[in-house]
């Protein structure tokens, strides 16, 4: 009873029933939380002190939840004395070694102080900016200030009616909100960290240090399953200090990403450095297994087991490999049985290789054809299509058999399937004719590029299947080769008939279009009819056994049973796998299986297959495209983007790839900001260009689809390089020159390979290239007119190149011909809808033309394509301001007009403003200054000035302007024509250049406008010249402002003006300095050029501005500058006469400050 009562209550703290504080209960309790509560109660000792029970509870908790916080106990701090002796000694020894090591390292490091001290590598510029924290977030101080003073800007009457001002104003601000809504998202899939570290200027110990650190980073990334990142960091470590460990680790990371070949390469390196490295062997074994090279894998694993017989991993791996090999053997046997009997083993193998492919071909085709003869003809038609739409075509044929993702396939394939009869074929060919005519030259180039690949491939094939050739009789040399290859193709690849036909179609198309291309006629001559039929013949002989499975797979795929199709493909692949000669088909099968995976949503599988496929045959469009798709679905946009671009490089007409690139671009720019391209850049270059060249060397095999008789490809191959380069420039307009360089070696190569190449063809493209690079060079040197000429030549040689138009547009903008620039940009945009540069430049041009709204439209478009383009954003802001001002002014003018309608006097003024609007003149600054000068008369004059300019400009631009000027006349008539005429006459001369300058400089030059009447002609002219040859309207060059008149500031400001072509800016600069200070400011930096510039300033600016006294002061002080004596001694004759004239002028000016005596003295100083 008593006991029962004791256990009835609950504890004070956690309301635990008393009877839970019991050995029996605790031992049975499985509720961790409850146990923790009990333990807490027990530890609090509120219910009494039960050390045993506490221990029991703890041990129970330990069993259930060893990580429970209640079990955490403080450990005392151990000293070394608490350690075992051995451990202690080890530790001591370790530390001792370390401190002595450190001393060594330290002394090493101390040795080379100066390197870093002096100018540090290329560090980013010093940043500047502030963030202001507010209650509801933060504001960056970089934020744009909105212009507080709205200026009136005139417009034409008619326009006022058209535009709803309020609405427009709202519209202007719209895009802003959109930008703001975008949120920041950290990207997991990073980061194009460069794979290499620039080790310049690092000592060995530093390199080691850094290499270790990078390796650590790699290890960490590996542990958190960021294998890509890990690979990057290992690579960086290797670039600093190649160690076996880094290679070994990277190999493991490659294994994880199924990058077998790279893993093998790395392990090979390790084994070279450390033969017998167990891990490396094991990893290589795994990689070989991944590649299904089971024999090699087995060898490696056996090596491991020799060294470490008990290595569990190795044992497991070996078991797996054994299993695989057995399966393989089985399938292998089946192959033999299925295949042609009576043949020798070796031949059998070769035949099995060929059968599937051939079977594929016939398989697909036979669905619609009865005889093989027809089959052949069909392939002709196919290739006919191929001719017409080369890029797409290539893919089609490659995969015609198995490809069933029709949805995204383009009409080309449909056509292929649609060709049932010869007649139809002819039809399509004819209908395709015109398309061909329009084909851009670069396409031809690409085609030929593929042909080169094919050729090398063919040569290879030739070697491989020489024994197979026994069946075939050999004819004369050229046709012999042809026949051989075609024959081989028929045996080895299903696509060879296509190849043969391609030649024919080549000739056909050549006939059709009668293009100027010489080689096509050559091809025509070369291709005899025999060749075309030959493949057909051989296809008959080889019964495709493997192909049956493949055909099944294809039909399954087409009927939408992707999973089963996938299984079939598995079979085919396992059949093909051990055959070295079957790389092409294997690659194809992988690619097809990838398609299945894509359909079934097994994206990683698809990527894997594509990788395998691409590994066998790099630069294959289809698997690349599929991988891109898979990556995109996996939201790994960067690799997807890279793949898309890769596809585009191979084949710029892939709509899918274009769309994909756009999507990825969008995503990437959202993720990485405007500079995302920088991140993508690196991986982009290497896969495109470098392997491409390797491919040409013949190492990598190209899909035989493009196979073409050598004769045909010979001539065309030469075009490849140039057209290729063009293509690349097309695609990455940003770095045309860089990319253009790369193909050249290819050209050389191909030339060397085939000496019989007709050189004729090359010339236009070569010319094009040279002109273009010349043009670019001129642009760099700011010789825009010459550049334009070059680009003109380019255009005549090869029209339709986007880069040319955008570049020329730039030149036009620079030379102040916005109309032409706009035309060029429009042309470029016709060719490439989303060309960022073209859009931007058109916006600029339109800004100059004052069609702000159109400009804004362009920029909006641009920002859609590339939302992070900061330059565009700035430009947008600028344009919007202009546009806003224009609208505001319009509003004002409306009000003005209405209020003053009846008043006669106001009529005059409104007439003037009307005219103003009519001429469209209002550059912002012009009107601004107009506003600022207070008096009515001043206003008038200035207004007229502006108007004048406009028409001047328009005249320059010629016809395009006629509209505007007519408008202006209309506007003027409406108001008061007389005033216009008068003013025009009076002000014509003065106004000519000045306002142009204002407009150009786009800065409020109040003082100058104020004195515009005074302003001397020569200086104005000069400035006008300067403006036209230089500087965009948005990038004015002004004299730098000096905060303090220190020598440093002055000299740096002076040097900053080096590029300006007039002395006006120097004059502005000099004006900021008191003549008395000139000595201190120039100090000992005076040189001949400076002296010359100063005298010119005096003669061109000071004197005409009536600042004779200041000029005297200036000259006098100048003569006291150190080094003046020396410098003046070396004045040229011309300079001396300059000085002389200045002196003369000074003398003639009356002054209080100096007397003729002084001038004489000065002459002496200047030794004139």
């Amino acid at each position, binding site marked *: 009873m008593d006991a029962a009562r004791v256990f009835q209550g609950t504890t004070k703290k956690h309301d635990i029933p008393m009877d839970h504080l019991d050995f029996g209960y605790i031992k049975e309790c499985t509720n961790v939380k409850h146990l923790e509560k009990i333990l807490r109660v027990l530890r609090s000792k509120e219910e009494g002190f039960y050390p045993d029970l506490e221990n029991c509870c703890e041990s129970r908790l330990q069993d259930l939840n060893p*990580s429970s916080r209640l079990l*955490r*106990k*403080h*450990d*005392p*701090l*151990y*000293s*070394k004395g*608490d*350690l075992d002796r051995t451990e202690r000694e080890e*530790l*001591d020894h370790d*530390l001792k070694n*370390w*401190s002595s090591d*450190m*001393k060594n*390292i330290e002394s090493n*490091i*101390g040795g*080379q*102080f100066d*390197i*870093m*001290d002096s100018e540090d590598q290329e*560090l*980013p*510029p*010093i*940043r*500047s*900016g*502030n*963030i*202001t*924290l*507010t*209650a509801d977030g*933060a*504001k*960056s*101080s970089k934020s744009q200030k909105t212009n507080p003073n709205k200026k009136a800007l005139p417009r034409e009457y008619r326009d006022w009616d058209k535009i709803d001002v309020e609405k427009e104003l709202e519209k202007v601000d719209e895009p802003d909100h959109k930008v703001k809504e975008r949120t*920041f*998202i*950290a*990207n*997991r899939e*990073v*980061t194009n*960290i460069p794979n290499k570290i620039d080790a310049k200027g690092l000592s060995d*110990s530093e390199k080691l*240090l850094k290499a270790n*650190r990078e390796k650590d980073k790699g290890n*960490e*990334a590996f*542990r*958190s399953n960021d294998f890509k990142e890990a690979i990057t960091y290992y690579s960086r470590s290797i670039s600093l200090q190649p160690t076996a460990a880094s290679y070994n680790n990277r190999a493991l990371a490659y294994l994880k990403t199924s990058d077998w070949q790279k893993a093998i390469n790395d392990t090979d390196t390790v084994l070279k450095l450390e033969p017998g490295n167990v891990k490396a062997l094991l990893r290589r074994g795994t990689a070989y297994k991944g590649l299904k090279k089971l024999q090699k894998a087995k060898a490696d694993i056996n090596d491991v087991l020799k060294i470490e017989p008990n290595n569990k991993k190795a044992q497991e791996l070996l078991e797996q490999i054994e299993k695989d090999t057995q399966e393989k053997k089985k399938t292998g046997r089946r192959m033999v049985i299925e295949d042609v009997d009576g043949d020798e083993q070796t031949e059998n193998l070769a035949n099995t290789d060929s059968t599937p492919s051939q079977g594929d071909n016939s398989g697909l085709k036979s669905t619609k054809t009865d005889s093989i003869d027809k089959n052949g003809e069909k392939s002709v038609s196919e290739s006919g299509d191929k001719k017409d739409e080369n890029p797409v075509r290539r893919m089609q044929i490659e995969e015609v058999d198995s490809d069933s993702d029709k949805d995204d396939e383009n009409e080309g394939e449909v056509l292929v399937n649609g060709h049932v009869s010869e007649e139809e074929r002819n039809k399509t060919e004819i209908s395709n004719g015109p398309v061909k005519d329009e084909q851009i030259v670069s396409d031809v180039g690409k085609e030929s590029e593929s042909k080169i690949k094919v050729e090398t491939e063919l040569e290879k094939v030739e070697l491989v299947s020489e024994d197979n050739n026994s069946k075939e009789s050999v004819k004369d040399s050229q046709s012999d080769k042809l026949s051989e290859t075609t024959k081989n193709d028929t045996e080895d690849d299903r696509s060879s008939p296509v190849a043969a036909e391609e030649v024919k179609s080549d000739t056909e198309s050549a006939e059709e279009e009668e293009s100027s291309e010489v080689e096509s006629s050559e091809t025509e001559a070369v291709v005899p009819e025999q060749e075309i039929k030959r493949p057909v013949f051989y296809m008959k002989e080889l019964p495709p056994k493997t192909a049956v499975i493949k055909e099944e797979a294809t039909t399954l795929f087409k009927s939408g049973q992707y999973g089963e199709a996938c299984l079939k493909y598995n079979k085919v692949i396992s059949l093909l796998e051990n055959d070295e000669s079957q790389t092409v088909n294997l690659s194809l099968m992988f690619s097809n299986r990838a398609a299945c995976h894509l359909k079934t949503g097994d994206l990683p599988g698809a990527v894997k297959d594509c990788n395998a496929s691409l590994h066998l045959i790099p630069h294959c469009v289809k698997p690349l495209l599929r991988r891109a798709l898979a990556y995109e679905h996996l939201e790994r946009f960067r690799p997807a983007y890279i793949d898309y671009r890769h596809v585009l490089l191979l084949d710029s007409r892939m709509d899918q790839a274009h769309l994909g690139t756009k999507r990825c671009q969008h995503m990437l720019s959202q993720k990485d*900001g405007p500079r995302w391209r920088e991140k993508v850049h690196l991986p982009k270059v290497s896969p495109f260009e470098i392997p491409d060249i390797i491919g040409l060397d013949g190492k990598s095999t190209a899909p035989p689809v493009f196979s073409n008789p050598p004769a045909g490809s010979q001539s065309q191959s030469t075009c490849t390089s140039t057209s290729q380069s063009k293509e690349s420039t097309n695609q990455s307009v940003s770095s045309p020159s860089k990319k253009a360089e790369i193909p050249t070696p290819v050209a050389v190569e191909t030339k060397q390979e085939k000496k019989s190449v007709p050189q004729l063809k090359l010339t236009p493209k070569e010319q094009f290239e040279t002109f273009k690079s010349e043009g670019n060079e001129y642009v760099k040197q700011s010789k825009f007119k010459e550049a334009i000429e070059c680009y003109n030549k380019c255009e005549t040689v090869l029209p339709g190149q986007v880069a040319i138009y955008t570049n020329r547009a730039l030149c036009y903008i620079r030379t102040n011909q916005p109309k032409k620039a706009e035309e060029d940009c429009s042309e470029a945009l016709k060719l490439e809808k989303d060309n960022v540069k073209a859009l931007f430049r058109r916006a600029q041009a339109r800004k100059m033309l004052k069609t702000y709204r159109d400009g804004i439209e362009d920029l909006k478009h641009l920002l859609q394509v590339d939302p992070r383009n900061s330059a565009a954003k700035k430009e947008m802001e600028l344009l919007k301001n202009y546009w806003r001002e224009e609208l505001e002014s319009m509003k004002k003018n409306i009000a003005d007009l209405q209020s003053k309608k009846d008043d006669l006097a106001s009529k005059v003024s409104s007439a003037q403003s009307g005219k103003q609007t009519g001429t469209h003149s209002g550059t912002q600054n012009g009107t601004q200054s107009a506003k600022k000068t207070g008096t009515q008369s001043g206003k008038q004059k200035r207004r007229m000035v502006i108007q004048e300019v406009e028409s001047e400009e328009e005249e320059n631009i010629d016809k395009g302007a006629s509209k505007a000027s007519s408008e202006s006349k209309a506007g003027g008539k409406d108001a008061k024509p007389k005033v216009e005429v008068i003013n025009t006459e009076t002000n014509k001369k003065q106004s000519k250049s000045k306002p142009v300058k204002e407009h150009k400089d786009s800065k409020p030059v109040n003082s100058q406008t104020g004195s515009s009447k005074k302003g001397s002609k020569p200086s104005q002219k000069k400035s006008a010249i300067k403006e036209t040859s230089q500087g965009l309207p948005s990038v004015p060059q002004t004299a730098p402002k000096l905060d303090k008149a220190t020598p440093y500031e002055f000299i740096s400001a002076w040097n900053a003006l080096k590029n300006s072509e007039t002395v006006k800016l120097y004059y502005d600069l000099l004006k900021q300095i008191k003549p008395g200070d000139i000595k201190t400011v120039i100090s000992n930096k005076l040189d001949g050029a400076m002296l010359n510039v100063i005298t010119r300033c005096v003669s061109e600016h000071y004197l005409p501005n009536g600042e004779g006294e200041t000029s005297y002061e200036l000259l006098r002080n100048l003569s006291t500058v150190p080094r003046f004596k020396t410098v003046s001694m070396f004045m040229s004759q011309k300079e001396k006469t300059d000085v002389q004239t200045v002196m003369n002028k000074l003398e003639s000016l009356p002054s209080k400050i100096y007397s003729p005596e002084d001038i004489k003295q000065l002459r002496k100083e200047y030794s004139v």
Partner: protein
Amino acid sequence: MDKPQIILHVQKSLNYTIFDAKWIPCSAKFVTLGNYARGSGALQIYEVSHGDLKLIKEAEKSKAFKCGTFGASSLQQRYLATGDFDGKMAIWNLEALEAPVYSVKGHKEIINCIDGVGGLGIGEGAPEIVTGSRDGSVKVWDPRQKNDPVATMEPGEGETKRDCWTVAFGNAYTPHERCVCAGYDNGDIKLFDLKTMSLRWETNVKNGVCDLEFDRKDINMNKLVATTLESKFHVYDTRTQHPTKGFACLTEKAHKSTVWAVKHLPQNRDIFMTCGGNGTVNLWKYNYPVSRVAKDSDEVEMGVPGTVQLVQNTVLSTQPISSFDWSPDKEGLSVCTSFDQMLRVCIVTKLKTLG
């Protein structure tokens, strides 16, 4: 005894309050910074040699030092940047301590915290120093620019100024990317993106933020640990930022008192030490979840927090541990200071076993 142990190598009692200790990179030496009872600043350099601490150099300056870093200095120079009680940021050449090589009165009040990046081969881009002060502002300094900060993050006019207790650099994996994270006495944590000069993320952990550290400064931000006044710390997975939810966070109780500091092992970013107000140090290991990213209902990626495992929990002192620093060159070697004016060099053994 397979797990790591914290072993005291050598300790030394000093006659001033030690606020910070930092290993000099590529050496067996470290610097201590502190405050003499008379209010002046102490700067001493010790070397670990033959199982003892040898005082190599010392200097006394007019104002007490609060914090220091080598993070923005090159390996050759190894200049120490310090912040003092007067709001002055100075850079010292340890070879010539008479006068600083760079000095600026950057803040109106005490500089609580300092961090550097871009030096020592850690972090791409320009060397920069960030300081946080009681005056509420966080300023970024570039040794190439005298007198003025290159970036300032401060409350606007009329806003309450929070005491900034800690700052940390991170995300410096390319020359242009860079972030500064700042913790305030009211529990605010703000992450500033220096590239875009914007506030990238902010949160409030309800308790004053004593220390912040990224697991590594020179990688794409991976993890951020924030320790707080009342015995908790938070680990943020900064790889994945959800537009509304921000970073995934894991919170853990530790020390039963203020968690004064957190320091990640330079050789392994997933191991870190926290220092408690009760004189304990805790060694933690972060374990990643199976998948670090999940998708919310709108298919937007968000991070998934992992778990932390307490590896070692050791009492060093009865007074708060004010600072702790891992040797960048020797895995496991560390120096720590406590408010009982003791300097301890400890060794954490078997860190490799944590892998």
